[in-house]
Structure formats: structure tokens, C-alpha cells
């Protein structure tokens, strides 16, 4: 077993990417993720790989497009306003079917917003921040160890499906220090050779072209259908979630992800002492969304589900789609960098449970 080290989330992202064979990192400073770029600036040259600080987030994501198209593992990182700028490039990357990993350490919005933790980019990440019919796998880790494991998984998933993959955290996860282990891992996935890469003919007879332009409507529709098939495959194979305190019947189920899900677990323990039984569905993939988790627990739920988020109500829409009218769905959210406390969550749930009794 590898040694455990104490590491900040943002730096752990960098080290995990290096372990996963990331050859190029293109970044741009923005709070609260700048430590990722600083870590990569220090570490990548030590391992003979590429770190480059781009002139903008727009340039950085297009450098990712260039390197990913040439067949190397590549990552970029940013925070909310920067991800908005990258969204054009992400759409092109999805259209051209290039594998890459994009990190979003989310801060509050809209606009320049603030720099405190938030989950207000849920729509942007899961419903397509850029234009066109595309999907991106989105992981939402809740601890530094899970962050490390998912960064490594993200590179494999990106390569397997030729698709961009996002790691979405917040400033809490990026700044907190936790013991972490970098496991020596061999992928169990059957990763295809990148025969499509445009890295020079080098004896190949037919040129490879990295492109997302299809001027004939029939061809663009066929391309879109092919993408949809791939997305269906991802939905079938790649859903990840955690069920907590759901072995037996509960009064209500919290749905929450990332660092906030940990706060919810504390609230659940506090409520337990007061005789209120609460379970937790913690989506680990925000897309594909863990709809089947809801089917699994539906019979155990008395009152319904509550989506708890650090925004004004985004994931709650997917909770409603997953519950599909079978039970009531409630919402509690704080935004702008305000983080719900366990006491607040306890009060909100007592309010719902009390009202129902």
C-alpha cells in the first residue's frame, strides 16, 4: 500500500493527474483553483512534461483541444467564470470527440460573483455550458481521497469514450487538507488505441482530421445520433453514487453532493438522536445522473426527498425528474458562498417532518 500524505485538495488534483499520465497542463490563474496551476508549474517540468500558462481560459481550452487531438492525456482547470470562457472550447472538444479532463473549482455567481464555495454551476456542467447537443461526464467528489481517485478515473473514462470529463469541486475541497493515498492502479478498462489522433502521418496513408464541422445536415444529424448512442452507453455504464443510512425505512431522504453531502451526514446524525430517520443519496456522477438510486430507495421513503444545494435550486430539477411524481420533493439551498450548517439542515428537515405529522 502506498504511503498516505497530507495534501491540499487543489494540489492533490495535480498529483493525481500526473499519476494518471497527464502529459500536458494548460492553465490560467483564477481563485479558488490557482494552486492547481502553481503545483503543475512546479511538478510537470520535474517529470519531463508540459506546463503552460495560457493568455486566457479561451486559449487554455484550445490548447487542450490541440494536445488532446494529438493523442496525449491533457488537463486544464479553472473556476466558474473561467469555465464560462472555456465553454466554447468544450463544445468543440465534445463535437470533435476528444478526451480530456477539465477541473471546475466552483465559486458563487452569476457574473464575477464571489470566491467562496458554491454549487451554482450545476446547470452549466450537466446541461451543457456550451452550444449544441453534447454531454460531458461530471464527477463531484466529496473528499480529497475521492478527488484523487476520480481524477485518475476521469482520464480513463475520457479515453474510453473519447469525451471531455469534468471534475467539479468547490473552494472547500480545493483548500482543505486531508490524508490521501495515491494508489498504484492499473485500469481494468479496455482503452482503445488512439488511431484517430492527428500527430503527424508518420507512415500512415490517410490523414487524420480533428474537426467538429459537418456542413451537410444529414451528416451532422448522423454525427449527433452517434454521439447520443455514446451518451446512452455512458449512462448505462458510468453512473456512480453513494447511499447512506438507507438500509432501513426512513422519514426523508436528502439528496446532496460534494462537500455539502458531508455536512448533510452530520445533520443526519443529529436528527437520528431526535428520532428522525434520514437517508442520503449522494450523486458522485452529476451526469450521468443516478436516477436508479431513487428507484432503489423509493419503497423505504415515508415523506419524500429534499435536495440540499449551495445554489438557488438546480439539481432539484433532476431530483424531480428522477422521482417522477412518486413522492414530494423539497428543496433547501444557500448561495453566494454561504454554506448550510448542520443546524440549519436539521431545522429545515424538522419543519418538513413536523408539518407532515
Amino acid at each position, binding site marked *: 500500500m502506498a504511503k498516505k500524505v497530507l495534501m491540499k485538495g487543489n494540489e492533490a488534483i495535480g498529483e493525481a493527474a500526473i499519476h494518471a499520465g497527464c502529459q500536458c497542463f494548460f492553465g490560467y490563474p483564477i481563485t479558488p483553483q490557482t494552486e492547481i496551476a502553481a503545483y503543475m508549474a512546479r511538478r510537470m517540468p520535474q517529470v519531463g512534461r508540459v506546463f503552460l500558462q495560457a493568455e486566457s481560459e479561451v486559449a487554455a481550452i484550445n490548447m487542450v*483541444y*490541440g494536445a488532446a487531438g494529438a493523442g496525449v492525456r491533457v488537463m486544464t482547470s479553472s473556476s466558474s467564470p473561467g469555465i464560462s470562457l472555456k465553454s466554447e472550447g468544450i463544445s468543440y472538444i465534445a463535437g470533435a470527440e476528444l478526451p480530456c479532463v477539465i477541473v471546475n473549482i466552483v465559486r458563487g455567481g452569476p457574473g464575477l460573483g464571489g470566491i467562496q464555495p458554491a454549487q451554482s454551476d450545476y446547470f452549466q456542467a450537466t446541461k451543457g455550458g456550451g452550444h449544441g447537443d453534447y454531454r460531458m461526464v461530471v464527477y463531484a467528489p466529496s473528499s480529497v481521497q475521492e478527488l484523487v481517485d476520480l481524477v485518475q478515473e476521469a482520464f480513463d473514462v475520457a479515453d474510453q469514450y473519447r469525451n471531455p470529463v469534468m471534475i467539479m469541486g468547490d473552494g472547500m475541497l480545493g483548500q482543505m487538507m486531508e490524508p490521501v493515498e495515491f494508489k498504484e492502479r492499473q485500469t481494468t478498462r479496455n482503452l482503445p488505441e488512439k488511431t484517430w489522433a492527428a500527430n503527424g502521418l508518420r507512415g500512415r496513408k490517410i490523414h487524420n482530421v480533428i474537426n467538429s464541422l459537418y456542413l451537410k445536415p444529414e451528416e451532422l444529424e448522423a454525427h449527433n445520433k452517434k454521439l447520443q448512442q455514446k451518451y446512452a452507453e455512458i449512462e448505462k455504464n458510468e453512473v456512480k453514487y453513494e447511499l447512506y443510512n438507507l438500509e432501513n425505512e426512513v422519514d426523508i431522504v436528502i439528496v446532496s453532493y460534494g462537500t455539502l453531502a458531508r455536512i448533510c451526514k452530520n445533520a443526519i446524525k443529529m436528527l437520528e438522536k431526535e428520532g428522525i430517520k434520514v437517508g442520503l443519496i449522494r450523486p458522485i456522477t452529476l451526469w450521468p445522473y443516478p436516477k436508479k438510486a431513487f428507484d432503489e430507495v423509493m419503497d423505504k421513503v415515508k415523506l419524500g426527498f429534499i435536495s440540499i444545494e449551495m445554489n438557488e435550486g438546480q439539481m432539484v430539477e433532476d431530483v424531480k425528474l428522477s422521482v417522477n411524481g412518486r413522492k414530494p420533493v423539497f428543496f433547501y439551498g444557500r448561495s453566494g458562498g454561504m454554506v448550510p450548517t448542520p443546524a440549519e439542515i436539521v431545522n429545515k428537515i424538522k419543519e418538513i417532518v413536523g408539518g407532515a405529522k
Partner: protein
Amino acid sequence: MAIVFERPKALLDVPTHYCPGCTHGIIHRLVAEVIDELGILDKTIGVAPVGCSVLAYDYFACDMYEAAHGRAPAVATGIKRAVPDSIVFTYQGDGDLAAIGTAEIVHAAARGEKITTIFVNNAIYGMTGGQMAPTTLPGQVTETSPYGRDVNTAGYPIRVSEMIATLDGAVYVERVSVDSVPNIIKAKKAIKKAFELQMQGKGFTMVEVLSICPTNWGLSPNEAIKWLRENMIPYYPLGVKKDITAGEVK
């Protein structure tokens, strides 16, 4: 019978989509001839822009990318950093490079990226049907400057080569034209030199090529050539703007 003229190996045998009289075909051919002559087809990677030459990836036989509007120098940077032994060129028009893509071209040049940019300047947006470009001349009539470019409201054309030449990372910048046979020969020499300096790892190289757009200028090809000579060359003087090898003994 000896073959004295044929399609360069770096160009594919496909029909062209360019308008009659357009000089993109000549410029494509010059780049392809240079790739052939330098024997680098196997490791050359080209990046097409958004604009008239968006489909350049259909014509060049080397590996190709199609980039987002203006972003070709950033894409080329990613390619070159990922595959350092490749020869990377961008092929960009004046709307792509001198308007939406100014940040990318300036910083690729400033970083001294070991890439070559072929910058085709025809003083207009061609693909979208003839709108004012950053390079449109004062007084020039386009769809979006119907009374002629008024410098009081639309500002002045950008002399990109002169601007890029001020950057330390740029090692070779030349403006050429394809309006005559002697100038076409000079243009090819410039493109070849730019590729050679990239191969030597010297830094960023760019060749700006003054080009015509008979369709959107509303002129016959012959009239367009005359217009380029009489209007564009005086505003955009031809010649070497930067050459760090100047004075080196060969």
C-alpha cells in the same frame, strides 16, 4: 514525356470550393510545395481557421485540425507542445487572425511558439459575404461599411505584420503578395524560410500574404489584382518585417 508540373504530394486530389479567381488556391499550393520540398509531409500538422479556408483540412494531405474562430494559434500551441518534433502551421484569414483571434496570435508570437502562421489578408470577411474586417482599408465599401470605412467610427486597419514584428518571440515576419509571378515566387521563398526556421527551433514565424477577393470586392479577378496593387500594397508595404537571421553568414 517528362512531367514538368504536377499536384504537390501535400495537396489532395479533390475539387476546390474557392470562388473563381480567388488566390487561396495559389497560397495552398505554395504551402504544399514547401512541405514537399522540405520532405516534412510525414510530421506536418496544419490548423485550419473559421472563414473561407475553413475547409483547408480537405485539401492538405498532412494531419489537420479545424479550430474555433481565431483560436488556431492556441490549438497549434497545444499540438506543438504535445508533439514537439512535429511541424505545425496555422492557415488563417484576416477576420480570424486580426479580429477575434488577436489575443491568440499575439501571445503565440510573444511566447515564441515554434509554429508557422500563414496569414491571408484580403481586407474583408469572405465566408460570411463581404463584411468589414480589421484590415479593411479606410473608405472601402463592404456590407457593414456601406458608406465606406469611416475611421472616425470604425477605426483604422491593423498592420498585423508590423505589430507582430515588435515581439521578441517572433523570429521571422514577412509580408508578401500573390498578385504577380515574381511576387508569387517571393511568397514561396518566404513561406519556405518560415518553415525552415521553425524546423531549426528558432521561434515564431509568420508570413502575411496579400490576397484578393473578387467575389466580395465586386471586381473581376483582373480588376481585383489591380485594386490590390493600387490600394492594399501602399497601406500594407511588402517586405521582411523581422528576421533574426538577417546578417548571418550562410
